[in-house]
């Protein structure tokens, strides 16, 4: 088909693509530029794209101003726990949903879809009251519980797709060969499913690492708060902000999810697409 595309069309396509590239890239490039600018250049009347004297001062200052290391540790703990627990409990359920047609599977699928439409206020007020009664406000344990359940719908969605991709005939063949049910799961299904499980866990990790609303409501003291919440402390009450350290901290907070996402992007889009195209 591409051979039929005329030269003018091609040029138009490249122009359009360039427009998209600029639109997608420029805010991020600006963030990086700001993060490496010395204070003097940030105050100049005519900001430049490339810092004349790039510096790491903003990063140092960011760590001085806010408990970033503590926040990153909190975020990491919450996100790792949420990712691991989420796939640990979602994988068996996804297996049942994919392999057995029952009312339960239908109800679970329905819930996965409906849960996308909840406004979180309706969840967070009761959760806040329940967690308060359990003394789990301002505790990462409470937040992790919320993150696990919050990541579950999408994790199930992805995992069901991965299980379906494992041919049921392989499991049947193993059981014909005399392997027990558990043996079949462990030695046939699990290895084929492993990459999907890892991708799902990483996705749950990213989701939790990036999450803001629940963390804002549930975590009260700076030493308990996660990275996104601590980042907002750089923005003062009147919206005034120390731009350099703000940009530096924001840039650092993005790196883990960006790197992981680049790593699993193909699998996620594949999983998401399977759902979007089918439904």
């Amino acid at each position, binding site marked *: 088909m591409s051979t*039929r595309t005329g030269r003018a069309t091609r040029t138009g396509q*490249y122009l359009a693509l360039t427009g998209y590239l600029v639109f997608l890239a420029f805010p991020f490039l600006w963030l990086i530029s*700001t993060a490496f600018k010395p204070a003097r250049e940030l105050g100049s009347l005519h900001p430049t794209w490339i810092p004349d004297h790039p510096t790491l001062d903003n990063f140092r200052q960011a760590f001085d101003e806010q408990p970033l290391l503590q926040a990153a540790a909190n975020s990491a703990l919450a996100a790792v726990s949420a990712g691991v627990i989420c796939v640990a409990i979602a994988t068996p359920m996804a297996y049942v949903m994919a392999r057995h047609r029952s009312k339960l599977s239908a109800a679970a699928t329905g*819930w996965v879809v409906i849960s996308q439409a909840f406004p979180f206020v*309706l969840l967070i007020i009761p959760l806040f009251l329940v967690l308060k009664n359990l003394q789990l406000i301002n505790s990462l344990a409470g937040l992790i519980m919320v993150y696990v359940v919050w990541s579950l719908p999408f994790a199930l969605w992805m995992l069901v797709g991965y299980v379906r991709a494992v041919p049921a005939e392989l499991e049947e063949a193993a059981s014909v060969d005399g392997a027990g049910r558990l043996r079949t799961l462990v030695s046939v299904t699990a290895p084929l499913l492993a990459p999907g499980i890892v991708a799902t866990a990483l996705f749950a990790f990213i989701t939790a690492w*990036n999450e803001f609303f629940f963390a804002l409501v549930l975590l009260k003291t700076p030493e308990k708060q996660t990275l996104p919440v601590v980042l907002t402390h750089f923005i003062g009450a009147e919206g005034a902000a120390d731009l350099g350290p703000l940009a530096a901290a924001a840039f650092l907070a*993005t790196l883990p999810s960006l790197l992981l996402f680049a790593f699993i992007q193909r699998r996620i889009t594949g999983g998401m697409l399977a759902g979007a195209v089918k439904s």
Partner: protein
Amino acid sequence: MASVRGRPGQRRRDDGRGGARAARDRAAWFLVLPALVPILVLSVGPLLYGIGLAFTDAQSGRTRSTQWIGALNFQDLVHDTLFWDSFRIGLVWAVGVTVPQFVLALGLALLLNENLRMRWLARALAIIPWAMPEVVVGIMWRLVYNPDAGILNETIHDLGLGDGRDWLTGFGTALPAVIVVGIWAGMPQSTVALLAGLQNTPHELHEAAALDGAGAWRRFRTVTWPALKPVALSITALNFIWNFNSFALVYVLTSGGPGGRTRLPMLFAYEEAFRYGQFGYAAAMGCVMVAVISVILAVFLAGRLRGGDDT
């Protein structure tokens, strides 16, 4: 187990192994429970509890003496002009983000589906907004929009288009400015979904249409769009819901200001619940939001089913 022997043919068709159904069901429950219990306790339960709270006068600090007040919260909400203002802003925001986002995403997906040279770069860049924490997206655009040190006003100045302005605090510019950020942030997901839809359409159909002399637009309308429609409707519906319920982006960009011009329903409900402690009232807002979203979703799905009939 005796019942299994009564209808062996059916068993065989079910799982091809003739295993005992009861045992299999027990195993299924055993596998499902670890996820089902947290879902019921931390998701379904709180949701029902939240709907219940909407009919009470629950406030933070005195939740023990909470009274059942019937539909009083909803009666108050009907007369709460601030809430309806935020509701209107929420709809403008959701439509203002979802529609351009879809159009732009469709354009990008069509481009990425062509055999262009910078395709890999566009794909790589499209990951960035998707993987970024919403808080960072908000911070990043605050840096872009910054009236003194931001790149937007500087570019406007360089192009000789005037002096630019304080985008996020201007009464007229704040909502359009946050809408642009919303479009930027959500475009990648839509692009990827649409691209997959495109790659699922049979290539031969395009070639046949091209041989018949159909131009680009005609090919799009008769071949591409019908195949893409189910995906397009799904992601548009989902994006609309996500956008209507969004919080972090606008919280970081404007906190709902100036003068409530960007106060989305979620921001309003958040303030009501966690700044003023009006749990019952905020829960009632949540219920109204769910109701409206359900109606919109139903209309969408009805349209989609109709669309399914004639294809």
